[in-house]
């Protein structure tokens, strides 16, 4: 599941993306000097409670973090060995809290709202003549097409297995590449047929100047 967004209405969904991201930044700074494990534990519990207020779908996403546990265990052990038990526990709790909060924002913020909130930060790039909307667009496209490409991989794998393909799976790289290029051709065509990506930029700018129509 790449598109993590949970389609529902919760209080967190209603909060604007900018406020959520600012809150995350503030909490990150706030947690940094905290030395008492009990305080951090409180933050961690509050974070988990926030998941609960969003609902069952959000809580279920916590299971997805299972894959991160070995990594956390490793960091904890290394820190314990190098700086001691208490600082290791602090570090892991701080990291866990922040990752969970960031993940919660991903779960409750739509892609385009997130982009609208983040895009002003890229404004300096415009001085270098880089079209920031294109960056936003590329991110959106990537998120949209990962499940599509996964389906292509699965189809190829099925076709491979159905004919007794064997273990030399690397040989699928070339057909996968060819299919991806074909896919990108079709997407480019569909994109052009609906007005392309260059026009929204110019039209938005025209809107801002109030001279459009």
């Amino acid at each position, binding site marked *: 599941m790449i*598109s993590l967004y949970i389609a529902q209405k919760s209080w967190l969904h209603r909060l604007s993306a900018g406020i959520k991201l600012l809150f995350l930044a503030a909490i990150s700074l706030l947690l940094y000097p905290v030395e008492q494990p009990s305080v951090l534990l409180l933050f961690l519990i509050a974070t988990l409670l926030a998941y609960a207020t969003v609902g069952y779908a959000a809580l279920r996403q916590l299971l997805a973090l299972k894959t991160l546990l070995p990594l956390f265990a490793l960091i904890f052990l290394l820190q314990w060995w190098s700086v001691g038990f208490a600082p290791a526990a602090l570090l892991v709790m701080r990291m866990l809290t922040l990752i969970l909060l960031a993940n919660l924002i991903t779960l409750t913020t739509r892609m385009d709202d997130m982009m609208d909130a983040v895009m002003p930060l890229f404004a300096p790039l415009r001085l270098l003549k880089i079209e920031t909307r294109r960056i936003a667009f590329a991110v959106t496209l990537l998120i949209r097409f990962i499940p599509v490409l996964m389906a292509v991989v699965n189809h190829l794998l099925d076709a491979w297995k159905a004919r007794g393909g064997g273990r030399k799976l690397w040989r699928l790289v070339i057909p996968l590449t060819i299919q991806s290029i074909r896919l990108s051709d079709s997407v480019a065509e*569909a994109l052009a047929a609906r*007005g392309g990506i260059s026009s929204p930029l110019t039209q938005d700018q025209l809107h801002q100047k109030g001279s459009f129509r």
Partner: protein
Amino acid sequence: MSSEFSASGSIVFDQVSLSRNAHPVLHDLCLQLNERRIGLIGHNGSGKSSLVRLINGLLQPDSGNIDVHGRSPRSGPEKMSAHVGFIFQNPDHQIIFPTVEEELSFGLMNQGVSKKEARQQVADILAKHQRSDWADKAVHSLSDGQKQLVCILSVLLMQPGVMILDEPFSALDLPTRYQLMDLLSQLPQQLLMISHELDTLETFERIIWLEQGQVFQDGPPDQVLPAYQAAARRLQTL
């Protein structure tokens, strides 16, 4: 709305020739399309897809002129998108955004509609089609038929005068095809559809049968479709 809505115009091909990768695809094609429901048939490689891509400027002719409801596709597909809606075969190659609402508002925002207004129009069209709960849905969670409906709605929102459908139902089951066909048949737009499912075209006003880049037969469905079917049975293509 930047496109003035007209379903009464016609599409004119005047001595149009096109080659792709040095292969001639269409040769000296002359056509006047006035009917509201037009089906395009022909074997693979007969030039159907190229012909419809000339209408919205995705392809440009080598020679000849094309007029689409008073506009020239020479202005390119971006400009033509407000007047010609295009539905492709595979919705997965056409849907660009992760959620339904973003997908539907994209074309509108390209036309200069503000984000707020675009979202309102999206909510309206979803409500009109009893799909209000779809706005926040992830497109990859939809079925193929539902995805194709999203594609159709996203094009309809742009209020084009012409809708082009390039084998839109080839991956869909029969009930889904019937439902989408019901929806399409009620549209005021001029419809130009490529299809291999001949029964879908039976209610159309005019069928054009292309063969090697030229019009082979042109007439009402009760004449052209049976002739096409009979020819297809005789033909050795493998």
